[in-house]
């Protein structure tokens, strides 16, 4: 380039840069900064796209209609199912600058905040009225080891769901409601792979989905097995229920025989059900949104059943909000929490989110087809003495975070063939041993 053109180029770059900087700085400096005003509330969450964003916005609208003078500031941090957000929250907490409130999964996921004395108890939000409409196990999950309430649930997702495509199953003549044991399920899978239109009977996704499937399998071994597991009692090869843990690993390994290579993301796996490439997929019921978006009809195009062996169980994945100590807007957070717990709040949020309300008095008419069925199941299980609810480990509720963190890679090694079934079972038991000091609560799920 000739000297003149060179100079011209540099001048252009200089002008553009200066302009950008000038505009930028002005823009930034002049932007309004809410935050520290008296009537505001700062809500951290990771519902950043699609239906979930619509859901939180609906809840915020409900809040604003009840408390019009309070500004709501949503801080959304996506990534890793809330992991990136929790990195931020932990950093804030360590630095002594707690956020007003944030979304977590009820149970162990907020435990480390509790341990550090950073959460206020919200017994005042848990009125008797509220306690009467929330099932006992769920109430329990929202309590700390000291018996006080520390979080309030906004929804319930079910984890032990198997999704299937009606067209695929109709072709094979299999009736999903008969698949109540693993043996029958695997028989059906054999049949499908031999004769049906699906390339694989089941599919699996990234490591957390593998661990997700595994924990449902463990639950299918019996509620007392699962309960012992989340109480950290299966911590060696000689522990009671170790054989059940081993059996669960074996069943998971058998399940792997019917899957292809793990997919990159969970919604890719659901997509394969939608396109009919695969017959079954084990995933929590946030997957419902995927079917909804493809305009699939529940019980016509797609259907669900409980994971084999867990028909009388409801696997719980619960999002909740809590109230840290020393926050800027404690009263606003109280208001927020009561709206979150209210019938109107939950009925505004859940239909859009795809989950069901944590309350037993939800207004059924607002919910879609799948959710109505889920609510009925939920109420039935709550009412029956031989049906159980269990908190998910993979989604942070049932077991300490450190345990959950290493569980997924352990299952990942089994999936990829780096570890054998017995090695995996041993590793899981050792894991409970390693983090035994983290297991500070004793769950009672109603089993024997």
């Amino acid at each position, binding site marked *: 380039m000739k000297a003149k053109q060179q100079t011209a180029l540099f001048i252009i770059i200089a002008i553009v840069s200066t302009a950008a900087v000038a505009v930028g700085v002005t823009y930034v400096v002049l932007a309004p900064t809410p935050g520290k005003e008296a009537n505001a509330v700062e809500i951290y969450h990771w519902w950043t796209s699609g239906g979930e964003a619509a859901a939180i916005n609906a809840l915020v609208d409900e809040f604003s209609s009840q408390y019009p003078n309070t500004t709501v500031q949503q801080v959304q941090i996506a990534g*890793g199912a809330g*992991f990136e957000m*929790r*990195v931020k929250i*932990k950093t804030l*907490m*360590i630095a*002594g600058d707690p956020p007003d409130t944030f979304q977590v999964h009820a149970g162990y996921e907020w435990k*480390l*905040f509790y*341990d*550090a*004395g*950073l959460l206020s108890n919200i017994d005042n939000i848990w009125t008797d009225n509220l306690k009467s409409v929330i099932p006992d196990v769920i109430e329990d999950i929202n309590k700390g080891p000291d018996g006080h309430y520390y979080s309030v649930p906004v929804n319930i997702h079910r984890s032990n769901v198997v999704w299937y495509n009606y067209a695929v199953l109709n072709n094979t003549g299999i009736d999903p409601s008969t698949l109540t044991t693993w043996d029958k399920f695997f028989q059906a899978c054999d049949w499908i792979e031999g004769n049906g239109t699906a390339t694989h009977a089941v599919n699996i996704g*990234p*490591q*957390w989905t593998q661990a997700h499937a595994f924990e449902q399998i463990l639950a299918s071994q019996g509620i007392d097995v699962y309960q012992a597991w989340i109480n950290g009692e299966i911590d060696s090869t000689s522990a009671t229920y170790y054989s059940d843990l081993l059996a669960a690993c074996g069943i998971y390994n058998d399940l792997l025989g019917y899957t*292809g*290579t*793990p*997919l*990159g993301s969970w919604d*890719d796996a659901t997509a394969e059900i939608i396109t009919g490439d695969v017959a079954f997929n084990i995933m929590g019921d946030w997957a419902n949104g995927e079917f909804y978006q493809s305009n699939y009809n529940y019980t016509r195009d797609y259907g669900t059943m409980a994971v084999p062996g867990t028909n009388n169980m409801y696997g719980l994945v619960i999002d909740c909000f809590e109230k840290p100590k020393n926050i800027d807007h404690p009263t606003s957070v109280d208001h927020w929490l009561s709206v979150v717990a209210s019938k109107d709040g939950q009925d505004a949020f859940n239909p859009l989110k795809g989950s069901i309300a944590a309350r037993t008095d939800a207004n059924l008419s607002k919910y879609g087809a799948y959710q109505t069925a889920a609510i009925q199941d939920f109420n039935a299980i709550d009412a029956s003495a031989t049906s159980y609810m269990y908190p998910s480990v993979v989604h942070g509720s049932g077991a300490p*975070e*450190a345990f959950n*963190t*290493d569980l*997924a*890679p*352990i299952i*990942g*090694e089994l*999936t*990829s*063939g*780096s*570890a054998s079934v017995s090695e995996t079972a041993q590793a899981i038991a050792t894991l409970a041993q390693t983090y035994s000091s983290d297991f500070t609560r004793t769950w009672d799920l109603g089993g024997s």
Partner: protein
Amino acid sequence: MIINENLSEINDFNSKKKVIILLKRFAKASFQRDSLIIRLIFITACILVAYFVYYFIIWNIYFSFTDWIGLIQTSNFVGFANYLKMLNDPIFWKSFQNSLIFMVVFIPVSIIIGLILAIFIDQKIRFEGSFRMFYLLPYALSFVVTAYLWKWMFVDDGVINTILDLLGFGFLRNAWISNPNIALYSVSAALIWQFSGYIMLIFLAAMRSIPTSHIMAAQVDGASGFKLYTRVIIPQIKTSTFTAFVILMVFALKAFDFIWILTDEGGPGWATSILPIMMYKVAFKSNRFAYSAAIATTLLFLVMMIVIPYLYITYRKKS
């Protein structure tokens, strides 16, 4: 809070110490009045870097000797407990091994490919500018973008396997990042793709700046083609290799984001878990901050082990 107290103590002590040392050194050097501004800026820059880099390193080292778990910042001194735990931790060794393998694969192969590409483009082919752009483009894209792209490419019926099928190499199909044996190499390949363009540029520039007289002299002596390159040109660009090495080392460490997204946090199992990944998980997932600090310190130590000798050798010749 305990941390903030320690912070301000060490803070004051450190910056004072640094300022005194530097001032003393400057006093010994020749002094000109209007050079005050320049030296002042230099000292400020050094102090800032010292604080934001070395003070934080010391922070890490300090906490690696405590038993800090969760959000309660205890300052119970536990000596080398965390380091012992680390040495007994199979996950640490696996991550360490992966870090090493990754560096050993990524750095030399990037250099070699960059070199080959540079030689190729040096042949005065047409459209050199476009080719250059073409190879540089991957470097311009952010890690996040390329990680998703590659994730999608490596999937079972993704681009790579489909193309292999089309070319008739279907037997080479693989579960590139789900296969624990080759996942690390797949990741390395993706990163090599991303950076070899930049390395090519460095080598190309170095080649172009060899005085033509040298090359002509060699050609007069009868060297051409292969010999020309191996005997004459390549030895002359040895010094560029150092910078290429540094840049690649930096990216090997910063590749954290890329690997995290591409392999689902170091999976399958721990097959692609490198030390920074383990460190991040231990800190923010398992909530073992003291242990994470110990790993961070070890990582830094390892990096020093590699970089210091290299720096020493290269800069010894200069002074």
